[in-house]
């Protein structure tokens, strides 16, 4: 093997953690076990909205094998906030969501937890806990929540001074935000065509295949160890510290391999309970959610009601838009309505707009982040209306989008001007692609839609250790959900000029890794990647120092080229030294070399995508399926092309599921009717065609290689791409998701009546 590797970035090496994953050896959240371990189970509320009058745990405590029972009384009331990504999270709500104190706010809300010697004993004990409730009427949707006589979820939540709400009155509308530009009335007055609809989407779930799972040990020295499947081990630490009022320095969180997250494994659910149970029982406690619990009581994303209006002049120039976005937050405030507002017009230059976004509490699980949180729903509205405008004006829908598409220097709806972005390149690539002009079969239709996501930055750390054999090990604190370790190893290989197989990448616990924000926001390859590159360059500079020592020249005289320290000009008597050469001499030249970097990456490098979807509809049953799909995206710079394509394909599949069949179905009493994979219908292999990907690379100037986030953008366009294809196939504009067969047939019947 030569010590000099070819350029690594852009290639497709086998991931380093791959063999363990294809052979079943990789250890996920539920795969961990400890000697003397207990099993935890929780008692969940059978009501969607009720006051807790009393809890009697005596029967449960008396059962053989039961070692601890806890209720909210075992946990101090919490008034802290924790920085969750960019959003400070109110841990009073967070704590109450983990275990209800005075009121249950959704069916499945935790009321008590048990630790016992077996899973069955813990579950049986939980069933024997007696809770007396005062049942209240549940609020299950936006319309009910904002009705004048709506039951109120939180007595302390009072209305702000926005229109339609009497300030100071108890309300379910937690907040309102507004974005505006120009003069709306003037804008619409200038429009030749105006389209307007009300759009509705339902609550949907991330659908990660691995249920939440953790293992916690509260040591007699007060030190806490948590092993858990999470996107953010540091955030788990900080949330648990706040909820349990434990010094964060005493909590060590070790992330397991993670079986999917998509934003849903950031907030803690089980971890504080497992710690509290372990403290009480003085033994390690393992907790694993069932799939039913995951659906009922983790963090899906908002159902929405969106009223949007857009105007254009005859030549297709968008001149005005207004929108009012209503997002369900679930049981506690904090929906992604604001992000929905900022994203929905991000693709277009619109001189006049007004967007209002409302955050509404309802008796459903508290929403969590889900891949580009807030953007898919509001973009569904925008891209449906843009499609309508193209039809009304008789314009090609890509042409109309290109005419209005933002480019570098244009201002985003949330304020600042964009740097180099790829939306226009993406649209041109779509227009040129054979898919756009391919003939359609009977009952088939084609839809196109764009999508935007900010992409995150935030804090990251990395260290790179050089081995005496010239290999390298890189350590970060980001759980690897989709191939980030191999990407990090590639960056180190690229910087040091060694083969990627000679770099090991690992994810460390919170005591070992430098502070690193979550795996989310499409930030790992970008922000943590930047830290990895800097740490590798630190190693490289130290290696130059060692070469300088060997050659007895000043360090500045030592160059670096293609993985080798190069001697100063005119010193032909000295041979360039490879990484391996230098590594072999570490003990003689000053000892080990470790490179470090810690940084805060600004959020920038927004991602844009355009998707083309072909749908075939059975007009007699309303059934439909995607028959062809092509996703175009500005990916900045693809580090590992295979995993970038995979992000795009996965986002498309999730978005298609959201568009066609996924939905939370509630009965009037607030009980979810389809809390399982049988009736929560995520796409299966036979539902989808191959998903073609076209990567466009417009370098992000903030990253040394031009990387920009890629993971979230691809879930944004599919909702409208599918709905627009449905419109094309059937002639009917559907404004409510999902486009399940009954809804489609109903729409077809209505339109022909």
């Amino acid at each position, binding site marked *: 093997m030569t010590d000099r590797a070819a350029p690594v970035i852009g290639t497709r090496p086998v991931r380093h953690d791959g063999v363990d994953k294809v052979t079943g050896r990789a250890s996920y959240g539920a795969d961990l076990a400890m000697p003397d371990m207990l099993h935890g189970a929780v008692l969940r509320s059978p009501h969607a909205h009720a006051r807790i009058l009393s809890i009697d745990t005596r029967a449960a405590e008396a059962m053989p094998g039961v070692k601890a029972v806890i209720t909210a009384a075992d946990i101090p009331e919490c008034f802290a906030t924790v920085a969750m990504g960019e959003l400070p999270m109110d841990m009073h709500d967070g704590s109450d969501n983990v275990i209800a104190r005075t009121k249950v706010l959704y069916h499945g809300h935790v009321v008590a937890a048990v630790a016992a010697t077996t899973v069955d004993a813990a579950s049986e004990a939980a069933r024997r806990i007696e809770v007396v409730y005062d049942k209240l009427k549940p609020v299950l949707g936006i319309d009910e929540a904002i009705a004048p006589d709506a039951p109120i979820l939180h007595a302390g939540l009072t209305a702000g001074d926005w229109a339609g709400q009497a300030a100071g009155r108890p309300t379910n509308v937690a907040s309102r935000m*507004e974005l505006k530009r120009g003069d709306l009335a003037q804008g619409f007055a200038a429009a030749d065509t105006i389209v307007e609809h009300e759009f509705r989407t339902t609550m949907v779930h991330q659908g990660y295949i691995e249920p939440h799972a953790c293992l916690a040990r509260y040591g007699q020295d007060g030190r806490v160890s948590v092993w858990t499947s999470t996107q953010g081990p540091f955030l788990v630490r900080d949330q648990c510290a706040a909820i349990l009022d434990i010094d964060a320095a005493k909590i060590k969180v070790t992330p397991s391999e993670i079986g999917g997250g998509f934003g849903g494994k950031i907030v803690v659910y089980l971890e504080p309970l497992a710690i509290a149970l372990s403290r009480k029982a003085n033994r390690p406690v393992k907790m694993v959610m069932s799939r039913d619990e995951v659906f009922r009581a983790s963090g899906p994303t908002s159902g929405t009601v969106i009223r949007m209006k857009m105007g254009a002049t005859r030549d297709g120039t968008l001149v005005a838009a207004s929108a009012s976005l209503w997002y369900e937050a679930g049981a506690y405030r904090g929906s*992604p309505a604001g*992000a929905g507002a900022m994203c929905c017009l991000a693709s277009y230059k619109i001189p006049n707009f007004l967007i209002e976004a409302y955050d509404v509490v309802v008796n459903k699980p508290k929403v969590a982040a*889900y891949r580009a949180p807030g953007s898919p729903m509001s973009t569904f509205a925008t891209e449906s209306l843009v499609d309508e405008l193209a039809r009304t004006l008789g314009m090609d829908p890509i042409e109309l989008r290109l005419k209005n598409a933002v480019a570098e220097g244009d201002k985003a709806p949330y*304020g*600042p001007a964009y740097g180099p972005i790829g939306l226009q390149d993406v649209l041109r690539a779509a227009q040129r692609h054979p898919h756009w002009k391919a003939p359609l079969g009977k009952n088939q239709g084609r839809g196109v839609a764009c999508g935007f*996501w900010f992409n995150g930055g935030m804090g990251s750390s990395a260290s790179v250790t050089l081995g005496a054999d010239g290999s390298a090990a890189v350590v970060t604190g980001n759980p690897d959900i989709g191939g980030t370790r191999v990407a990090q190893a590639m960056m180190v290989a690229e910087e040091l000029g060694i083969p990627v197989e000679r770099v090991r990448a690992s994810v460390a616990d919170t005591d070992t890794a430098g502070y690193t924000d979550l795996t989310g926001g499409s930030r790992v390859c970008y922000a943590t990647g930047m830290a990895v590159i800097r740490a590798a360059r630190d190693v490289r500079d130290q290696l130059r120092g060692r070469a300088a020592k060997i050659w007895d020249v000043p360090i500045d005289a030592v160059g670096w080229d293609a993985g080798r320290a190069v001697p100063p000009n005119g010193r032909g008597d000295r041979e360039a030294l490879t990484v391996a050469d230098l590594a072999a001499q570490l003990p003689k030249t000053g000892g080990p070399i470790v490179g470090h970097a810690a940084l805060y990456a600004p959020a920038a490098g927004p991602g844009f995508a355009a998707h083309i979807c072909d749908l075939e509809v059975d007009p007699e049953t309303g059934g439909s399926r995607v028959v062809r799909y092509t996703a175009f995206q500005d990916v900045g710079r693809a580090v590992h092309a295979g995993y970038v394509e995979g992000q795009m394909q996965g986002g498309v599949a999730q978005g298609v599921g959201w568009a066609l069949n996924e939905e939370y179905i509630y009965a009037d009493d607030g009980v979810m009717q389809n809390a399982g994979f049988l009736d929560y219908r995520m796409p299966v292999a036979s539902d989808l065609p191959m998903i073609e990907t076209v990567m466009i690379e417009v370098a992000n100037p903030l990253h040394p290689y031009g990387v920009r986030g890629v993971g979230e953008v691809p879930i944004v366009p599919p909702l409208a791409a599918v709905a627009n294809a449905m419109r094309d196939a059937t002639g009917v504009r559907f404004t409510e998701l999902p486009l399940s067969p009954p809804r489609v047939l109903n729409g077809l019947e209505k339109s022909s009546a």
Partner: protein
Amino acid sequence: MAKVYLPADLSRHTGGVEILEIDAPRVRELQQALAARFPALAGEIERFAVAVDGEIYSDAPYHVLTSESEVYFIPRIAGG
């Protein structure tokens, strides 16, 4: 003088002023100057992320500003 842009949710506290110029060495001093001029912004403005010349930070009080800087206050967002 840095050019400062306030979103609608902040300009509600400034009597409708959306764009203004402020001389401040860093983001923190700029926030202080804004709060001094519009007392209702105190406690509100810190809840916003800040974009300086297109780069968005959730919290960057010591970020240095130049006379050319464009500063936007924007709502914070969470990624999945």
